[in-house]
């Protein structure tokens, strides 16, 4: 009975959050296939500790697990979207191609940030979390999160603008 209850709650959580979590993981590692593996692993970890995790904290727990898994991989290997051509499948449609181009530019810049700064940026500017929420989600001091965001933004300005100019010139 208890197991069924756990499964039902986990299923509801999966239905509600899995796509967001998968998107977050894809932002974090840049590789859709790897992101699916990492998200699955993070969900498995959450299931194992489901009785200890409060429902409202579950999403933060899984995001934290995703960040940790990405950091573990980051230590072992250099994760780069440029090394995994599988994601670069631009559509023949012009608009789709432009979107993919933009995605590649953003991801190329993001992957140059440290995993923690990358996570802070995605949570702040993609998921619209407040700095307090980011601090809670990543289990980091608020000051550190602010510092991470400030520095990440400064890095991204440098990383993203030259490509913008080049793209503008190409058009």
């Amino acid at each position, binding site marked *: 009975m208890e197991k069924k209850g756990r*499964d039902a709650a*986990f*299923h509801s959580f*999966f*239905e509600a959050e*899995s*796509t967001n979590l*998968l*998107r977050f993981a*894809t*932002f974090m590692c840049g590789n*859709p*296939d790897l*992101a*699916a593996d990492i*998200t*699955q692993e993070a*969900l*498995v*970890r959450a*299931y*194992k500790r489901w009785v200890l995790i409060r429902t409202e904290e579950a999403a933060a727990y899984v995001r934290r697990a995703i960040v940790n898994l990405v950091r573990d991989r980051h230590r072992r290997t250099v994760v780069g979207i440029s090394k995994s051509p599988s*994601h670069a*499948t631009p559509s023949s449609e012009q608009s*789709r191609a432009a*979107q*993919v181009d*933009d*995605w590649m530019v*953003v*991801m190329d810049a993001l992957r140059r940030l440290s995993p923690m700064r990358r996570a802070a*940026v*995605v949570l702040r*500017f*993609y998921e*619209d979390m407040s700095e307090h929420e980011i601090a809670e989600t990543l289990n980091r001091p608020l000051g550190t999160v602010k510092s991470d965001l400030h520095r990440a*933004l400064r890095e*991204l*300005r440098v990383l*993203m*603008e030259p490509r*913008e100019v080049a793209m503008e010139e190409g058009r």
Partner: protein
Amino acid sequence: MIDERELATRLKSAGESMPLRELRYEKVLPRARSASRRLVALVTVVLIAAVATAVVVTPSFWDEESSILEGPTAPPHPSTLTLEEVRPVLQTFARGMSGEAAPQTWHLLTPRAKEIIGGRAQWQQQLKRQKYLFAWIYRSDRLLYLTPLPGDRAVIVAAQPEPRDGMWLLTAVAVQEIGGRVLIDLDTRPRVSLVPESPVFEAAAACVPGSDDCADPAEQMPTVSPGDTFSVLLQPAEGVEAVRFSLGGDAWVAEAELNPAGDGVRASVEFNGGEVPSGQTVFVVSIMKSDGTVDAYGYRVLVSD
């Protein structure tokens, strides 16, 4: 220059266009359940192990073997160690070695002996070889002599075979008092090879009863007289720092003179008689090595006036 708002727009646009793989609940759940079961199994195993450990370390559990685990306590001053104080330690050790509790004897070894042996796994491997020797000591109950070594760290305990087995002292074991306990300072490394050169040794041989290289027990007991020169050839010479000859316990102890000889070193000394009473006694050759360990060979001899 890109600002926060633009960055948010770019990220949201990228998020919409990013290729996403499908994440199927039907695939996640079995893995999660399997991992959860493994976790439960692991926790169960750890709990069982913890309970078992708690039971095993309870003193009452070891009532039968407590003497093997703990060993007798030594008096506070190592210089006052006597054969009677050391005997129970070696007996305990030998009793453990000769029985099923052999692995427990690990606790009765000095830290240095443990380091030399290299760990419990190595000890398990060496038990067979050591077991025979100590089983014999335990059965024979004939610990014969206590010889002090330089410093206060150790003594040599000599064991004697049954008279019908032969006439010679067969082994010697170092012990050390640490923290009020007498521990066995066993050195299981290959010994320095000793070749007796003096006539007094001709009839004697350092051997273990039953082993292939044991001399014929029917040999005559060698006789030692004042003025005799004792000489042994030790090979290899490396690691040999000093050699002591002793006779009758600490009644006569002499540092041997060392001279290079072929691939080894020759240790020799003249017996001056000293205070050694006539009659049967034990002649011990102690080889102090540069790593702090001691090899010891013993011979049972007859001292004559």
